C-alpha cells in the first residue's frame, strides 16, 4: 500500500560540507587564474600602503549618506553652472570651423609678434590715422567690426526673446 507522502527528507549539506565545497570552488578559480591573481594582490598591497583602500572602504560604507551630501555639495558649489558652462564652451568650440579658427589664430600670432616689437616712437594722432591706409591694418579692423556687428545682433535677439 503506497500511502501519499508529503514529507521530503532533503539532503542538506552540513556546514562543513558546504564550506568545503565553497573553498574548493574558490581554489579552482584561483589556480585557473594564478598570474592575474598574483599581480592583482601586488596592486592591492600598493593601494593599501597608500591608504587608498581605507578611503575607499569609508566611502563605500557610508555611500548612502555620501550620495545625498554629494548632491548637496554639487548644488552649493554651483557645479551645475560650471558643468553647463563647460558643456556650452565645448559646444561653442565644436561649432567653430577649424579652418577659420586657424586663420584667426595665425593672424593673432602675427599681430602679437608685431605688437611686441620695439616701437620707434609714440605714434602721433595723424600718424595713427595714416596707418589706416595700411591694407593689413584695414583688414584687421574691418574683421573686428564685422565681429562686433554679429555679436550685437545675437545679443539683441536674445534680449527680445527673453522679454
Amino acid at each position, binding site marked *: *500500500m*503506497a*500511502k*501519499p*507522502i*508529503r*514529507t*521530503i*527528507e*532533503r*539532503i542538506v549539506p552540513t556546514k562543513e560540507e558546504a564550506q568545503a565545497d565553497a573553498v574548493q570552488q574558490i581554489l579552482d578559480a584561483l589556480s585557473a587564474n594564478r598570474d592575474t591573481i598574483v599581480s592583482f594582490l601586488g596592486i592591492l598591497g600598493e593601494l593599501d600602503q597608500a591608504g587608498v583602500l581605507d578611503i575607499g572602504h569609508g566611502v563605500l560604507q557610508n555611500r548612502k549618506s555620501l*550620495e*545625498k551630501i554629494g*548632491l548637496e555639495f*554639487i*548644488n552649493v558649489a554651483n557645479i*551645475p553652472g560650471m*558643468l*553647463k558652462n563647460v*558643456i*556650452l564652451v565645448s*559646444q561653442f568650440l565644436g561649432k567653430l570651423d577649424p579652418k577659420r579658427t586657424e586663420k584667426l589664430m595665425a593672424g593673432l600670432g602675427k599681430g602679437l609678434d608685431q605688437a611686441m616689437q620695439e616701437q620707434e616712437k609714440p605714434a602721433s594722432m595723424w600718424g595713427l590715422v595714416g596707418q589706416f591706409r595700411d591694407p593689413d591694418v584695414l583688414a584687421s579692423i574691418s574683421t573686428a567690426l564685422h565681429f562686433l556687428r554679429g555679436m550685437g545682433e545675437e545679443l539683441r535677439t536674445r534680449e527680445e526673446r527673453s522679454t
Partner: protein
Amino acid sequence: METVNVKIRMNGKEVECEAGQTLLQAASLSDVYVPSICYNPQLGPIQTCDTCLVEVNGELVRACNTVVQGGMDVSTESALVKEAQMESMSRILKNHELYCTVCDNNNGNCIVHNTTEKLEMDHQKYVFEKKPYEVDMSHPMYRYDPNQCILCGRCVEACQDLQVNETLSIDWTRERPRVIWDQDVPIDQSSCVSCGHCVNVCPCNALMEKSMLGEAGYLTGIGSDVLEPMIDLTKEIEPGYREIFMISEMESAMRKSRIKRTKTVCTFCGVGCSFEVWTKDRHILKIEPTVDAPVNGVSTCVKGKWGWDFVNSPERLTKPLIRRGDTFVESSWDEALDLIASKLGEVKNTYGPHSIGYIASSKCSNEENYIFQKFARSVMQSNNVDNCSRYCQSPATAGLLRTVGLGGDTGTMHDIASSELVIIVGANPAESHPVLATRIKRAHKLHGQKLVVADIRKNEMAQRADLHIHPKPGTDLIWLSAVTKYIIDQGWQADEFIAQRVNGYAEYVASLSKFTMEYASEMTGLSMEELIGLATLIHESGSTCILWAMGVTQHMGATDTSTAICNLLLITGNFGRSGTGAYPLRGHNNVQGACDFGTMPAYFPGYEFVKDEAVRARYEQAWNTKLPEEPGYDNHQMVDGIQNGDLKGLYLFGEDMAFVDSNSNFVEEMFEKLEFFVVQDVFLTRTAQFADVVLPAAPSLEKDGTFTNTEKRIQRFYKVFEPMGQSKPDWMIIQEVANRMGAGWNYTHPSEIMAEAARLAPMFAGVSYERLEGWNTQVWPVHPDGQGTPILYEDKFAFPDGKARLYPVDWTPPFVVDDPSFDLHLNNGRILEHFHEGNLTYRSEAIKHKVPGAWLEVSPELAAERGLEDGTKVRLTSPYGQVKVSVIVTDRVKGKELYLPMNTMDENEAVNRLTSSYYDKHTHTPNYKEMNVKMEVLEPKGESPLPRVNHRFAQRNPQIGVKVVEKWNRPDFEPVEETIRKEREEHGQTHSNH
C-alpha cells in the same frame, strides 16, 4: 483577393500603394520615417498624439488615418511638417519628464524616447508640468504614474477595444486629464482583470510592471531621496536633449548584455500566446509581447503576463526522490534511474508489457510526447500510452474524426474574429482562453459580429452575447439537432455544398425526425422562440463558427454532442472557408500536440492507427524493433486495470491525475495499489505523493521545444534559464530512463526529435526547427515544402473520397443521482486567475492577492432559500465524497445550479471528490459536469472567499476607444496646424519690422 494599386508622390518620388492603406502604412512600407506615438498596428489610429502629421497637397493631415488616394502629393519632411512634429512632440513632453538614464523603461524600445531622439529635438517649447495626482501603486502587478503619462490613450484603446474589459478611460473633463480606472477608483479595486494589455502598449514608463521598477537599469535602483535630486541635476545642466540621449543610449546599450530577452510560448491555456521573457539572472523582469506574435500580438492575460513566479519557487523539486517507509528521501540521479530500470523491468518481465501504463503530459512539448510514446511502444512494447486530453477534448476530436476527418480546429483565430456569427457552447473563453475571447469581444463590440452563448452559467461571454440560451444541463444535443432540423425544414440548408461535398444526407435527415421544436423545447427548457431565433441567426449569417469545450465534452453523450455540432455546420455549409468552422477550445498549452505526437493508445503520431500494418512497418523499420499491434489502455482503462489487477506499474509525467481525474477518492485508492509508480513533475503534486520514485522536471522556461496550440499551430519556445538544481527537461529524463532499459538513444536537442517525427509522420512532413525560428509558426498538416494549412478542408475533407460525412446521433440522458435528497446540480470548471487546480499560479503572491482560494457560486434564489451569504461555509456531499467550501452569492448561476471552480490545492475543496466514474461511452472521458449534491450549512457567517479587490465586484466603464473628440472639444485645445499658422504669422510680423 485582388489588390488595387494607387500611385502617390511621396517626398517627390512616385510610390505605389495598395488601395485602402493609410499614409502611415504606405510610408512605412517604403522605408520613410513618419513618427507615430499613439499608433499601434493592432490598435489602429487613435489620433491623440499628432506626431504623424504630414503634408498632403499643402495641408497637414494625420498619416495614421488618412487613406491613400491616387495622385496625392505627400511630404513627410517639409518645413511645415517639421514644425508640426516639433509642436506635437513639445505638447507630449509637457506631460512627460525625460529622465531616461535613470528610467526603468530605457531599454531601447521606449517609443517616446525614440521619437524625441529621431526628431532630433533639442529643447522643448513647453515646460514640463507635474499633474496634481499621486502615482497609483495599489495594484500588485503594475503601477500608473500620471506624471509621466502623455495621454496618448493607447492603454484605453487596448483595454476598451482590444482586451474589451472596459476599465480604463481618459477623463478629458478635468483641468489636467488623466487615465482613470472605472469611475476613478484605485486600480486594485477596479474591474481590471490584470491582463497587462495597458502596460504592454504604453509607449513610455507611465504604466509599468512593478517587477521592472528599480531592477532594469544600472541607476534605477536608487532611492527617491537621491533619485529626484539627480533628475533635477540632470535637468539643470541639461545642454539639450541630444546630449542627454547619448548618455541614456550608452546606459541602454549596457543594459543589453544584462537583460536577456528570450521568446517563449505560454503554458497556461491552449491559445498559444508567445512573447519575450525579459530576465536578469533568474529574476523575471517582465513578459513583453510584440505585434509579431502570430496568435496574440500585444495581448496577454493575467496568467501569461504575471504567473511565472513558480519557476523560482523554493518548493521546486531539485533532486530525485525515493520512497523509503513514510518519507521521500532525496537521491542521486543514478540511484533513482537504476531503481526505475530494475523495478519497471521486473514488472514487465513478471506480468508482461501490458501491465505498465504510461501517462503523458499535455503541458509538455511535442518532442517530449513523441519520445515518451516511442519509449512505451518500442522499448517497453506497450500501447498503454495516453494523455490528459482524455479528461477534456477526446470527445470533440472523436466528433470531428467522424464527420470531417481531422481532430483539430478547422481554422485559426483569424477566422473566429472575422466570422459573422460565433456560437459558444459550454465554454467560457473569457476565463479559460482569455486572449482568444478578446478577439470575439472586439469583433462583437466594433465590427458587428453576432454572438450566441449556450451555457447554464451567465459567464462574461453570456453577459455580452446577443443571445444567451440556458438549456437544462446535458441537453445540448437536443437543441443542436432541433435547430438543424428546423433549418432543413425551412429549406435553409446549403444545398450545393451538401450535394458536392457531403455524404449521408438522406439518412441524416431521417434521423432528425424526433427533434421537433416541441420535443426540444420540452426537453431543454428553451422556448421555441429562442430556438427559432438561433436558427434564423445562423441562416442569416454569411459565416458561422461554433466553439465548444468542457460544457459539451464532459458528459456521457459528449462525442455525440460534438458530432451534432459538426452536423449543424455541415448542413449550413460552414466548413472550408474563412470565417467558418468547428473549434474545440483546447484547455492546456499542448493538448493538441500531445495527441498529435502519438501519446494515444490507438494512434502513432499524426493520427495513424497502430493497427495499420503499413504504418506499423514504417515505425518498426525506423525504430528497428517489432511493435505491439493492438491499441492499449487509455487513462480510464488504466485506472480500471489497477482495480482488476491487470496493471501493476505506472509511469506518469506532468499530470496531476489524483486531482484532475474524476472521482479522485477512487483514483487515489487505485494509486495506492500500484506495485511501482514513477512520477515526473516540477512540484510534489498530489499525484507525486503516491509515487515510489519522483523525478524533478524542468518547466518550459528551462528547456527548448515546441507546443501546438488550439489552432494546430506549432510554435517554438526557447530556454530562458538553466534547469533549477538537478532538475532536467522531461525529454532528457525520458531518454535516460529509456537508455537504462537498453534503448541506446542519443538525442542532444529536441530539434533532432522533431526531425525524426517529421520524417515518420506525413502530417508533419515539412516541420523543422529552422522553419519555426523566432516568431515563425506552422499550422498542420504541413506539406514537405513547409507550407501549413491554416484553413482545413478548402478543397476536400480528410476522407478517401474527399467528402464529409453526416453522422446520425441520438441523445444520451445525463447521469442523475437516483436520490431526490441530492437536490442541487453541480457545475464546475476553471477561473481566469488560476491555471487549472493552481499548482503553478498559487506560487505567485500577486495572483493570490486577487484570488487566494476556491469558492462556491450559489444563486441569489438559493441563498435566500437556505440563508446563505458571501462567506457562509457549506459542505457539499455527493454519493462519491464531500468538500467544504465558502460561498459567493452571484447571479452568474441560477436556481439550484452551483458552480465550484477547480482552482484549489486543498483536497477538501477539490471538486473531483464529488464527481463520479461515469463517462462518455465512445472516448471514456469522465462526465465531470453531471453530478447532483446536497448542501449543509456548517458556519452561517464567515470571511468572503473572494477579496473585495477582485474584479468580479467592480463596475466596468464601457465606451468606444479613448474618445479623442472630447480632447478636441476642450476649450484649451488648439489644432497643431492652427498653432503653427499663428506662429508663422507672428514670425512674419517680426521680420517685417526690420
